[in-house]
């Protein structure tokens, strides 16, 4: 099964779609290569978080998504 990558909030507008799929396994450098230089720069900002399997990663570069995993790319929240 592929890895599912979700772009939350304003990241959707930047990449032009709400989600992408990628072959597993997918690590941090693989993700940055996949999304292109503009999105890659945004993802590297401290205020952007990354979740995998429903857990926010303490260190984004530790990302390692396996078959069927879901990655969520989380820009700063707007609040409710």
């Amino acid at each position, binding site marked *: 099964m592929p890895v599912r990558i979700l772009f*939350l*909030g*304003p990241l959707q507008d930047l990449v032009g779609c709400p989600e992408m799929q990628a072959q597993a396994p997918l690590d941090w450098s693989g993700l940055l290569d996949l999304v292109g230089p503009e999105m890659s720069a945004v993802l590297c900002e401290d205020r952007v978080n990354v*979740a995998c399997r*429903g857990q926010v990663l303490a260190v984004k570069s530790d990302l390692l998504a396996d078959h069927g995993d879901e990655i969520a790319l989380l820009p*700063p*929240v*707007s*609040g*409710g």
Partner: protein
Amino acid sequence: MRDARLLAEPFVPAELIDKFAKAHPQSGGVCHFVGEVRGGQGIEGLELSCYRPLTLPGIEHLAHAAHNRFDLLGILIAHRVGVLQVGEPIVCVSAAAPHRREAIDAVDYCMDHLKCASWFWKREQRADGWHWIEPRSDDHAAIARWNDGK
């Protein structure tokens, strides 16, 4: 009663409030807050999006934290997602406590955390299209006063 929920459809706060109040007949004070989509300033609508695997556990944790911090008898957090029209309710927070101060503070605490420490993204619709919103500086100042590291 500790109840946290994400709602994809419009809701009637009075129905939730009535049920919540009846569930806590022993409380000395019950406080409710209802937030609505603000009109004016060219705002035609609001879209709230979330990431349910994080957002729902996040508001459940917030309800739990408020319950413990303010020694509540009950807490309700109900929050909309999706596209909303001006005047529609976005959020309803209710707290029941033995005394009024705990109930009022618990609602205030929950709202401050929902406003800038919860996994929601929102954008406003104006005549020229959709515009993403970030928390205002006074929202950050509001949450800082609770001193819980958020």
